[in-house]
């Protein structure tokens, strides 16, 4: 789509303004116009960010700040705010905020969108842009003592960053948070704690057993995946890495996020047959990921020896066997390729279809068992109903997506709203629940697995009847892929945890100039204080479990 020609056949569920109308709305704040592949871009004055974003939000309805991308050019810094609508995510706008090369400062978007808080902190941390008016501009992924900004151009990669212990804060000191309130107790939950699902550190202030304040400290698993992808070639070397963001069997979904962005960037077609295979594999991954989410949530709430966790692991194991048959690996699939998938379904096909059908046949019984064990259990209901409440408006403000948003009644699913793959041809429903609590999020996951099973079943039917001479699994993609110079794109897919978006800027070479990952867990985790404050410690743990974060994706 171009500036003058907005896509005519977009589903007009929400009133859409043309780029020119939007430009008029924003008036003098605009200093230039750009065209990104996914959306019109408006370059605005660095001190008008809040004005522009609140105008776009209240007057034009762009209520979802899905991502903030910061990058450094030869002559300037730039923050790109990717806005879209919860009601119709195909309507997108990019707000580009340039910042001075010498002193990169621009206004913070945090007062308009709470989700900008962490995104801007990350931009400050990795790229080095400072945000005026930001309430708490500190490093977020790297330690406080880090020198330099790793994604900045003048950063010296070889310089060792050794910080002696004495320069770090002594964790044994400072027992109460504030001098005035000696009744509270400061408690470190994590980074090594049975319920943090990885190396997450929660700085918690307790009043008795109630949580007075909680602050997440992330970055223990930071590997600068964005930089690793910037060093890899489009054609081959990036694809193995998405598996390692959300490494809990959701690899296929992650791979699709990169595949979708890169295919749109380089204008690569994907054969329909490959799209069906992709859809099937993605939903298999989703079931595997949700099973683990349900199992670990049970672990958090039930106690350490609950059988539910092992049953979930057992069913996930069956799914992993299927995925191994298809892709050759159990977690790090590396199965998608630009323009298709690497392999056709395993031979003999009948045997494979049989296995999938066996799983699908047993799966409703297994789900019934989970409902018996979990959702119909009175004590679990006592524990989870009306705890960890996340109202829909708060969820939107924090950019929460996926089962977390859908558990708060936000009807947002990119598979349906921004269709890709083969989803729009299939018959399935988006599951939402208005409960807004821990129970709703759990319930949404359980129900989503049913829908995924429905999708897989339809895909198997399609694949079984697919004509043999039309089984193209990859389109013709040049071995060295060099997208056009200075093209920008932001594309997202519905991963297991929510909207997994990829921003790529190409510079005419075979590696991306900027590769940004919009991780759903990163945004979802931000809502934890809203859910946990005022609750008891067990509910904090349950809320964290219901968010289903994977630290590999939070920290990237």
């Amino acid at each position, binding site marked *: 789509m171009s500036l003058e020609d907005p896509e005519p056949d977009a589903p007009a569920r929400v009133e859409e303004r043309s780029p020119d109308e939007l430009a008029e709305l924003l008036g003098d704040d605009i200093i230039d116009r750009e065209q990104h592949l996914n959306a019109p871009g408006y370059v605005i004055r660095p001190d008008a960010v809040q004005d522009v974003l609140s105008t776009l939000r209240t007057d034009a309805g762009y209520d979802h700040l899905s991502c903030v991308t910061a990058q450094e050019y030869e002559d300037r810094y730039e923050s790109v705010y990717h806005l879209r609508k919860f009601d119709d995510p195909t309507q997108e706008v990019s707000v580009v905020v340039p910042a001075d090369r010498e002193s990169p400062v621009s206004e913070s978007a945090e007062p308009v969108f709470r989700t900008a808080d962490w995104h801007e902190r990350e931009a400050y941390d990795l790229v080095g842009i400072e945000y005026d008016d930001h309430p708490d501009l500190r490093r977020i992924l790297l330690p406080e003592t880090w020198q330099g900004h790793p994604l900045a151009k003048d950063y010296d990669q070889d310089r060792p960053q050794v910080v002696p212990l004495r320069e770090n804060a002594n964790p044994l000191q400072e027992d109460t948070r504030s001098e005035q309130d000696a009744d509270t107790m400061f408690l470190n939950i994590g980074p090594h704690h049975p319920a943090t699902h990885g190396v997450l550190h929660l700085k918690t202030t307790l009043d008795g057993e109630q949580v007075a304040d909680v602050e997440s400290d992330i970055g223990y698993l930071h590997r600068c995946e964005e930089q690793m992808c910037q060093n890899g070639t489009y054609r*081959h070397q990036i694809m193995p890495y998405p598996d390692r963001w959300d490494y809990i069997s959701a690899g296929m979904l992650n791979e699709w996020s990169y595949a979708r962005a890169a295919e749109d960037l380089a204008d690569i077609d994907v054969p329909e047959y490959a799209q069906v295979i992709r859809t099937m594999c993605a939903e298999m991954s989703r079931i595997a990921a949700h099973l683990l989410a349900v199992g670990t949530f049970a672990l958090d709430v039930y106690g350490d020896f609950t059988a539910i966790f092992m049953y979930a692991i*057992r069913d996930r194991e069956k799914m992993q066997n299927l995925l191994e048959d*298809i892709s050759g690996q159990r977690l790090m699939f*590396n199965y998608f390729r630009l323009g298709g998938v690497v392999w056709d379904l*395993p031979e003999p096909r009948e045997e494979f279809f049989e296995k999938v059908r066996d799983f699908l046949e047993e799966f409703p019984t297994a789900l019934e068992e989970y409902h018996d064990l979990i959702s119909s259990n*009175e004590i679990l209901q006592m524990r989870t109903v009306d705890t960890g409440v996340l109202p829909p408006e708060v969820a939107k403000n924090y950019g929460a997506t996926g089962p977390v948003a859908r558990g708060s009644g936000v009807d947002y699913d990119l598979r349906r709203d921004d269709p890709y793959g083969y989803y729009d041809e299939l018959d399935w429903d988006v599951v939402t629940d208005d409960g807004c609590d821990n129970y709703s999020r759990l319930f949404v996951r359980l129900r989503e697995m049913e829908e995924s099973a429905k999708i897989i079943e339809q895909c198997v039917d399609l694949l079984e009847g697919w004509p043999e001479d039309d089984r193209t699994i990859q389109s*013709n993609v040049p071995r060295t892929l060099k997208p056009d110079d200075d093209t920008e794109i932001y594309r997202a897919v519905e991963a297991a945890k929510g909207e997994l978006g990829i921003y790529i800027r190409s510079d005419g070479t075979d590696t991306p100039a900027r590769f940004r990952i919009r991780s759903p867990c990163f945004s979802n985790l931000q809502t934890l204080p809203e859910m946990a404050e005022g609750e008891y410690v067990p509910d904090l743990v349950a809320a964290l479990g219901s968010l289903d974060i994977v630290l590999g994706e939070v920290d990237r």
Partner: protein
Amino acid sequence: MIGLLKGMATTMKHALDGTTFTVEYPDVAPEVSPRFRGVHKFSQERCIWCRQCENVCPNDTIQIVQDDQRNGEQYNLHVGQCIYCRLCEEVCPVDAILLTQNFEFTADTRDEFVYNKEQLKNVPWYKGIDPLNSREPDRGAWIGEGDGEIDYQ
């Protein structure tokens, strides 16, 4: 209360039916798929030293040393660093490098995971499954891909 009892009945059912899902490894060798990607096997006879595997490797796991005549001297692969993406096998035009199904490898130090070409040649096939044969039906997928557009640098 009924939900509670239903849950307890479910676990008791599992306890009494006596079925187990876990495998007694290493007494029972687990089944792996024909496509499973394990430790590499290298064939010097086939290799034409085109260095494509070295180029495609995302994290510099493969190191090739050639003399000034471009004849291969060394082929080193760090199986401990490898991420088993199988791209080397995918780009290899002559099947000189293959990923076997063998996932059992141990060493005392990291250095021992750097396999030279002799060690790579001696990697056994898992359960005697020849990875090349087991993948034969699927190989059309990447061989002959990109008509006329393959650039061997």
